[in-house]
């Protein structure tokens, strides 16, 4: 009698606990969701508003009139199409270059034994801890010596060969370490050279790692801000992150609706990639994660 009452009281408490848990879970998550979604909501809707409506109080949830011409204005305000192309081709070249060099190096560090291998690898690895701002000044001086400032070359070469490439090499090596050696042994007996094994056996197997490196590298290049800010002066050579800051009036104040339309266009490919390949994007970024 007594024990059963105890048990019902316990299950009652358990259920109350669960209910309270669910209520607090949902209330916290709705707030969190609002905090994280509101900036995107505001970005997209404001990009369609007239400038005065952006400042309306109380704010309007949707534009009263959808101003598609904001998006046309983006391209007349600045050579935005040019900036888009710049960002695109730089990010593609950086990604291709990084894939080539890091897969070669990562493969060798994982699968080929040569004297000094671990010391070389540790040396490269030590470069990963270096904040970008430590080496930015000498890198700028090097590029200036070779008259490569105000060109896209530093934006392409330095990420491929510098810290970005090292991170990619590290990721590729991790993957190749887990490759079964039977594959290589069989290929070796069949008379394939190292180059053949790398190209025909190892690379196809490493597709997931290549995808992770590609995503990470593309995003880093597309979103890079400090390097273009330092290296590029000419408006025609700007990349998107620089371009977005240029939508200002003669007093230096942002022309909000046009700027936001440009921002939407700049973020769009990345968001599409995220929607299409969310799992891969999350994995590749969290594997690299060294952000505060």
């Amino acid at each position, binding site marked *: 009698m007594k024990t059963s009452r105890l048990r019902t009281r316990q299950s009652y408490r358990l259920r109350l606990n669960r209910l309270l848990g669910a209520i607090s879970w949902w209330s916290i998550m709705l707030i969190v969701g609002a905090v994280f979604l509101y900036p995107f909501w505001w970005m997209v809707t404001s990009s369609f508003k007239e400038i005065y409506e952006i400042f309306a109080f109380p704010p309007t949830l949707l534009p009263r009139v959808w101003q598609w011409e904001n998006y046309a204005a983006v391209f007349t305000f600045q050579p935005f199409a040019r900036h888009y192309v710049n960002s695109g081709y730089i990010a593609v070249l950086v990604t291709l270059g990084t894939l080539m060099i890091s897969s070669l190096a990562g493969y060798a560090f994982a699968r080929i034994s040569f004297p000094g291998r671990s010391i070389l690898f540790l040396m490269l690895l030590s470069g990963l801890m270096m904040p970008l701002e430590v080496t930015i000044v000498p890198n700028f001086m090097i590029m200036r010596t070779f008259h490569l400032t105000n060109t896209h070359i530093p934006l392409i070469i330095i990420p491929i060969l*510098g810290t970005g490439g090292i991170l990619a090499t590290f990721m590729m090596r991790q993957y190749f370490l887990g490759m079964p050696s039977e594959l290589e042994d069989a290929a070796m007996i069949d008379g394939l050279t190292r180059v053949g094994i790398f190209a025909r056996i190892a690379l196809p197997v490493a597709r997931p790692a290549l995808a992770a490196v590609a995503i990470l590298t593309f995003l880093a290049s597309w979103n890079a801000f400090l390097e273009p800010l330092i290296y590029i002066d000419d408006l025609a050579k700007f990349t998107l992150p620089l371009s977005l800051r240029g939508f200002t009036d003669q007093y230096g104040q942002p022309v909000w609706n046009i700027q936001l339309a440009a921002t939407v266009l700049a973020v769009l490919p990345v968001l599409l990639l995220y929607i299409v390949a969310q799992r891969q994007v999350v994995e590749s970024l969290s594997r690299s994660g060294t952000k505060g």
Partner: protein
Amino acid sequence: MNTPHTAQLPTAPAVGEGQRAKRLTLAQRDALYGYLFVLPQVIGFFLFVLGPLIAVFVFSMQERNLLSDRVDLAGLANYRQMLADPLFGKVLVNSLIFMVGLVPLNLAISLTLAIMLARSSRRVSFFRSIIFLPVVTSAVAWAIVWNFILQGEQGALNQLLALVGIRGPNWLGDPTWAMFSVILVRVLKNVGLNVVIFVAALQDLPRDIVEAAEVDGATRWQSARHIIIPFLAPAIMFVTIITVIGSLNVFDHIMLLTGGGPSNATMVLAFYVYHAAFRMYEIGYASTLAVVLFLLALLLTIVQWALRRRFVYSEN
């Protein structure tokens, strides 16, 4: 690179005709491929990482200006200038404030969210994707939006506060609030990354123990406090360290939100390097600051290694 294998290369003739002894053994040829494969990356490391690092030390002992080609030897003058520079002291304090403000906030939020989102269901993965959204968005886009939200008069945050009768400050323009605002914006941008790491670590949590504790009447807070957090201790340490090191590396958000102002309230070390080099054109002095930044990063990395060895935590 000067190994016997490479030295033999020129003497090794076109393969064939049984020219014994001059051919490379299989292992030697393999090693040669190894060197060839890593060569571009190693060259890149010397050109763009190690070389510049050495150059930073050299520049720090020179009087160098970005606008003239003149270079004078300065000895330790830049270091003396730094120690006498009142802004440098402020910058160090700011960097510390930034770190001490950012790391606990990031950890508290990411840990709470990860614990709340460690199950797999459709609603959970929906919220997880939302939280990760800013991570893929560029810092510039994120900052543009927050610049608006945090405005003094017409900003969305202050409009919201006005509804409950609070008159909010000019978040980015007020020296007392600017640093807090930058920290908040940066935490919201990057917290999703740490949530993912914690969620991954929580996959291995023995569920039955938590359920048993709940049956015994433990509240969520109690099971989090006594079961989940101790279980996550190694992951928490790992995330703490990468977040601390990452907090040194803050340029974008400072540049885009406050430009180091108001009255240098958000001037942190990484930004001061940029400021000295590309706004004041003092390459020598900027390099001295970069040396300090490097030493700080090195120190934190050594601490990280020491701790990791001690706790024997594998990242897999």
